[in-house]
């Protein structure tokens, strides 16, 4: 009985392992696909290098703007709202969300940059499948970074609207 259980476990492990392996290595790639990847990947890596450069620039410039908005505008404005005993719950909440999203953006970009760099540095003619998988992963990571950028833009817009609402309420009181 014990041997049977062990045997079943082993069969399960082997089957499970082969399925994962098949997924990891992208079963849809045929020999002609691999030949195409080998043929084109060096040129693609050159393009990826340029994208890597322009993304670094975008990261630095966007990061600077986000930092300025958070530390030099949102935080002092919230303090001033609190000092003047106005209702600053909405703006404070948005600031917290913005800062959390900014942390997420930094982490996601780091993840994306490392994946893209791996794709650039791979010996793609020797490892076409790994290159293909890494490139797909980089696409997924880039989409996540894009999503964070869109969310941050949305939060900046939202904060602006909340400031306007606050301004209107102060105007209404006077």
């Amino acid at each position: 009985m014990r041997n049977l259980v062990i045997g079943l476990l082993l069969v399960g492990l082997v089957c499970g392992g082969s399925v994962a392996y098949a997924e990891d290595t992208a079963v849809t790639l045929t020999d002609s696909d691999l030949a195409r990847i080998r043929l084109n990947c060096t040129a693609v890596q050159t393009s990826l290098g340029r994208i890597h450069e322009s993304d670094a620039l975008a990261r630095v410039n966007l990061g600077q703007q986000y930092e300025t908005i958070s530390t030099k505008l949102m935080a002092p404005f919230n303090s001033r709202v609190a000092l003047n005993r106005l209702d600053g719950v909405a703006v404070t909440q948005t600031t917290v969300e913005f800062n959390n999203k900014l942390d997420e953006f930094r982490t996601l970009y780091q993840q994306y940059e490392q994946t893209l760099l791996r794709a650039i540095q791979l010996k793609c003619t020797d490892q076409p499948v790994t290159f293909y998988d890494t490139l797909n992963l980089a696409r997924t990571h880039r989409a996540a970074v894009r999503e964070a950028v869109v969310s941050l833009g949305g939060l900046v817009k939202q904060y602006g609207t909340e400031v306007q609402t606050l301004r209107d309420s102060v105007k209404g009181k006077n």
Partner: protein
Amino acid sequence: MQGSETKEEPILTRWQQHRFLVMIAGAIVVACFLVSVALGLYNSSGAAQVDLSRPGYEAIRNQANQDQSSKSFDATGTLDDATFKSFQDLYNARAAKVVDVASFDDAALSEDSLQLMNPASVTDGSN
């Protein structure tokens, strides 16, 4: 009594004979360890990703935003309509640079742009 005194040479162990070399080697080992820790922190903290002074970024280094004198909003004082207006002017100017930006769009890494699976060799895949 004889006037001359004979001074005995102290017997040095092997370690004592080479202590200067050992000190130098130790200093190098400690320095290598500290540098590796520093490099690890540099890479894991995300500082490497925003460091455009690294090799390979020469072309874009000058395009980075050099604006160091961004105005800060004063955290103290009254909040009247004029103050709101001055804040909104500052804020909207910054917001315009981050809202609806096209950075990190999917197109750059798309198959259409990279042409990885193109049967013919890729000529130029710039975005």
